[in-house]
């Protein structure tokens, strides 16, 4: 336990924990709705944009966060209009996002050729996170942005839940379904941009989808599910950071994903076992009205 006490003495660790706390809560909460609305792959697409935006900012020496947010928010708006209007198929969307990734590769090479090898960690940082390199200023920004995102999500939670479950009925009750959907994707874009520094663009999906996937197995009450998703994301980031501190060969983002995956296996495995055993033991009760 002395090791853990020593952990908090380091500024880089405090910054990492601070930034990760905010981002985990926001990502976990957003992830609940992503899974509910079947928009997990929209988040994947946004993470591609975040990758390319991030390396572009690196390559051209621009303020990373602002560029990221602009790029991803733009992508979110486009995605929302695509989903609402035409039926852009699998292939079209995939082709578009492959192109975006390809552009990112170009920016990485521009960045690498413009900087000495000791600095090329920037590229890896965009891909897989650089959580132990977060400054106190960046940590503060992360917390503020996360508070904003979480507040936004909590405010729209109820109507968004209704719209996600039954859009036609929600619209008849006065809910602006399209506007809410767009606002939600914009929040996801902002959270994804912030999350790049913690998990890296390639692993954002883990922090958003997995906690919700676990929570789904644990509860059917919506607000409990939201809280659980946020909580599980938080537990995963803290344990991941601690694990990585204690065993430095493990990169922190890997440690977080490992914890998340382990929790996921545990939850789905337990549910499957419980379900198969109750099916064989208990007779189904008669249902009224059938």
């Amino acid at each position: 336990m002395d090791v853990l006490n020593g952990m908090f003495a380091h500024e880089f660790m405090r910054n990492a924990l601070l930034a990760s706390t905010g981002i985990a809560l926001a990502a976990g909460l957003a992830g609940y709705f992503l899974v509910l609305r079947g928009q997990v792959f929209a988040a994947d697409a946004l993470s591609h944009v975040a990758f390319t935006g991030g390396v572009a900012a690196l390559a051209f020496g621009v303020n990373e966060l602002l560029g990221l947010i602009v790029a991803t928010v733009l992508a979110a708006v486009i995605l929302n209009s695509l989903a609402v209007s035409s039926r852009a198929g699998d292939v079209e969307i995939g082709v578009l996002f492959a192109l975006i990734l390809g552009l990112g590769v170009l920016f990485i090479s521009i960045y690498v050729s413009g900087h000495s090898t000791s600095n090329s960690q920037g590229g890896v940082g965009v891909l897989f996170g650089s959580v132990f390199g977060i400054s106190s200023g960046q940590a503060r920004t992360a917390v503020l942005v996360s508070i904003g995102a979480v507040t936004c999500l909590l405010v729209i939670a109820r109507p968004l839940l209704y719209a996600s479950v039954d859009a036609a009925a929600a619209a008849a009750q006065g809910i602006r379904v399209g506007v809410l959907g767009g606002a939600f994707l914009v929040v996801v874009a902002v959270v994804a941009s912030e999350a790049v520094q913690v998990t890296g663009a390639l692993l954002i999906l883990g922090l958003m989808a997995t906690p919700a996937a676990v929570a789904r197995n644990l509860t059917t009450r919506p607000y409990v599910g939201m809280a659980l998703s946020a909580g599980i994301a938080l537990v995963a980031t803290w344990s991941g950071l601690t694990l990585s501190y204690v065993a430095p060969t493990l990169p922190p983002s890997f440690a977080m994903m490992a914890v998340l995956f382990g929790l996921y296996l545990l939850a789905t495995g337990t549910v499957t076992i419980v379900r198969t055993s109750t099916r064989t033991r208990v007779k189904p009760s008669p249902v009224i009205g059938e």
Partner: protein
Amino acid sequence: MQSATHDQQAPVGTAALQLEDAAVSRGGRSIWRGVTLRVEPGEYVAVLGPNGVGKSTLLQAILGLLPLTSGSLEIFGRPPHQAASLIGYLPQRRSFDSSLRLRARDLVRLGLDGNRWGVPLPFAPGGREIAKRIDEVLEVVGAAAYAERPVGELSGGEQQRILIARALVRRPRMLLMDEPLESLDLGNQQAISALARDICRTEGVTVIMVAHDVNPILGDLDRVIYMAGGSAVIGRPEEVITSEKLSALYNAHIEVLRTSDGRLFVVGQQPEAISYHAHD
């Protein structure tokens, strides 16, 4: 036909639904026009007609989601936008959502306050009344036994009852149902129709149901709105679903056949998506 309950909040004689020479268009094309009809409070009315004739459009006009291009439409004496809180709506359901892991009870709750911002706080005042109301409405639809289960695990008929409960939870005076019997087997169709009739009689709710096939619900109905040929007629089933009436409506040779056990079949040139072209 007299209804069992009386509307105490509106002056005597106020219709639940009143259309006067109403017309509606979509994208410049007229869907129906010259529709004049009156539904009394507490009636159970079916809206019938071929595909594409504008049955769902009628519901949307009542909900205020689609404006009239001419004529008037009043619900309990009020225009659509002011009557929104009086109406419970069950939209057409395309498929059976088997992956929704949301407690049935929570889905019903959304009908009550799903459009309010924020999240419901655990110990907020009024929680007990809300829970009581949800229990009540679940009893009415006969779904109390599976209210704690996730919606995705319920059968088609069970899901439909939960959705009806959601539409009823705010004590509407009118219930609009858009093809609720689709994708249900015959037993469930009859059960849901019987439920609609019970809601009508015991809760005093005016029920308007868009249906594809009149046979499962024929015995429960008060009257029928039949839409075809760009217009509509209302009347008792035996008055409206006749060879003469329908032939006049479709402007084609239509025959209504009655089987030995009372089922009706409409045969003849029934062009499916008949669209009425307005010339004005």
